[in-house]
């Protein structure tokens, strides 16, 4: 089995006086899509931010592609090959869609072929290419945020609740996009609360609660075990839309 692309060992994160991550052990297998599930406040966003270096881990280690990135600065972590799509999307409103993508393409001009590929599953981007990103709808902004993360090939994508607050039709587009991304060599770590969305997408899953991983394993196993779902997530597959 190939080396996991990301390994978190005993990661603790403190924010001010709050002890949010209390010893997170997470292994993200190379390639494919790993899902991080959990209720609100479990620490999922904090985990992503800690990996990205936006918040510093107080204990533990984070290994990415063989390198210890625990103490690295955020720009260096990004340059090591990790792209981040935050919950707030953080598109630059004053910049056009094109400029948002251009900024993300660190090594120079935009790769036309790649952009075309992205616009394949996000047609709205082509349409609003020269519009300020701030004028776009929520779903379109999410497309810009994701497009920004993949405008150049990256090793690992960290995506935080992309479907939050979006209409079902847009969620469909995102599903398609992630399926296409899975075919590339990019590994995806996806934080979600929408189990329906991830049950068919995810290859492996980790469930968080109270700043720790309670369960990890193959998505297939969790999807077929309703009792386990009840216990971990407090819901059953059918009742959650």
């Amino acid at each position, binding site marked *: 089995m190939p080396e996991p692309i990301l390994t978190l060992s005993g990661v603790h994160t403190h924010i001010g006086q709050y002890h949010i991550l209390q010893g997170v052990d997470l292994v993200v297998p190379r390639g494919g899509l790993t899902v991080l599930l959990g209720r609100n406040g479990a620490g999922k966003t904090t985990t992503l931010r800690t990996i*990205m270096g*936006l918040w510093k881990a107080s204990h533990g280690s984070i290994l990415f592609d063989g390198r210890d990135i625990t103490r690295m*600065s*955020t*720009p260096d972590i*990004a*340059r090591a090959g990790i792209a*981040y799509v*935050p919950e707030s999307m*953080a598109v*630059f*409103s*004053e*910049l056009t869609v094109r*400029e948002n993508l*251009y*900024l*993300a393409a*660190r090594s120079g001009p935009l790769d036309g072929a790649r952009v075309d590929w992205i616009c394949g599953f996000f*047609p*709205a981007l082509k*349409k*609003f290419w*020269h*519009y*300020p990103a701030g*004028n*776009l*709808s929520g*779903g*379109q902004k999410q497309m810009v945020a994701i497009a*920004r993360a993949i405008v150049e090939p990256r090793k690992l994508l960290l995506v935080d609740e992309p479907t939050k607050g979006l*209409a*079902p*039709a*847009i969620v469909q*587009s995102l599903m398609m996009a992630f399926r296409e991304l899975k075919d590339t060599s990019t590994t995806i770590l996806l934080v979600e609360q929408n189990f329906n969305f991830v049950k068919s997408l995810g290859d492996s899953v980790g469930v968080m609660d109270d700043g720790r991983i309670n369960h990890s394993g193959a998505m297939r196993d969790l999807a077929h075990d309703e009792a386990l779902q009840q216990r971990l997530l407090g819901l059953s597959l059918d009742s959650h839309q």
Partner: protein
Amino acid sequence: MSATLPVSQTTPDTALPAARRDILPLLLVPALALAVLPFISLPTWVTLTVAGLAMGMMIFIMASGLTLVFGLMSVLNFGHGAFVSVGAFSATMVLLPMRGWLEADSLPANLGVLGLAVLVAMLVTAVLGWAFERVVIMPVYGQHLKQILVTMGGMIVSEQLINVIWGADQIALPLPASLRGAIFLGDAAIEKYRLLAVVVGLAVFAAMFLTLNRTRIGLLIRAGVENGEMVEALGYRVRRLFVGVFAAGSALAGLGGVMWGLYKETLVASMGSEIMVMVFIVVIIGGLGSIEGCFIGALLMALLHNYAGFLAPKLNLVSNIVLMIAILMWRPAGLYSKGKL
């Protein structure tokens, strides 16, 4: 099964129309100029307008650094005036020894020396700005109260150091020979130096505009103004950007200082702090972080100052404040706010 409202099958694919460029503030400048035209004879109007434009350009150059730094780093440098003074005084290191060239009535020679002086001034202030950012400002990032206090302290110390290094007396700085006097457009007298100031100001504005809108660095700055954290997450070292912008802003202040010193033809250590009130008003009027707003604000203030000085001298004392209040009542965050009120 729950009753659901019928959901549209098609993806909503309409966005708001691309925002029309907000040119209303830009129209204020010609509006003001034309509004006073009936009250002044044409030749005088020309003279006053050029004087106002020149003064406005110089203040813009000095203020642009301040507003950019604030927009990007949320740092308000109350010591910005120090760079103005230091720039002017540093220029004397070139202008005084080369006085001979300045006395020659040859435009190329004069401009050459001026150019060199400006280069030296901008270099000194850029380095000083870099040092100031690292030593004085970085320790108090995010603490606005301390920033205000510390940068004010920095200004006091700089002014005193200027007195230590260059002496406590005023330094006279006569205009270069070929830039003295005026050219005449019909009956209207236009001072040559003021024309130069307008040209330089426009060039600086154009350069800033192009940099911000057409280059990657400009993109980084505009994005950084909105969300510095995300720019870092995209792999850019925002700290370096900050320091670079700070140094550039200081260099611009230095340039403004040289031009202002020549305009006044005397240098005193406190010239920077004296001009700071006007710079602050311009920055407030323009909207913190907006170059365009700063440009328009500076022109408006200077034009008003010159027109009022001629039409109603007693009123001129408060013309700046009145303008500031008027603009803020129309747009409380300044002409072009970046939403950082």
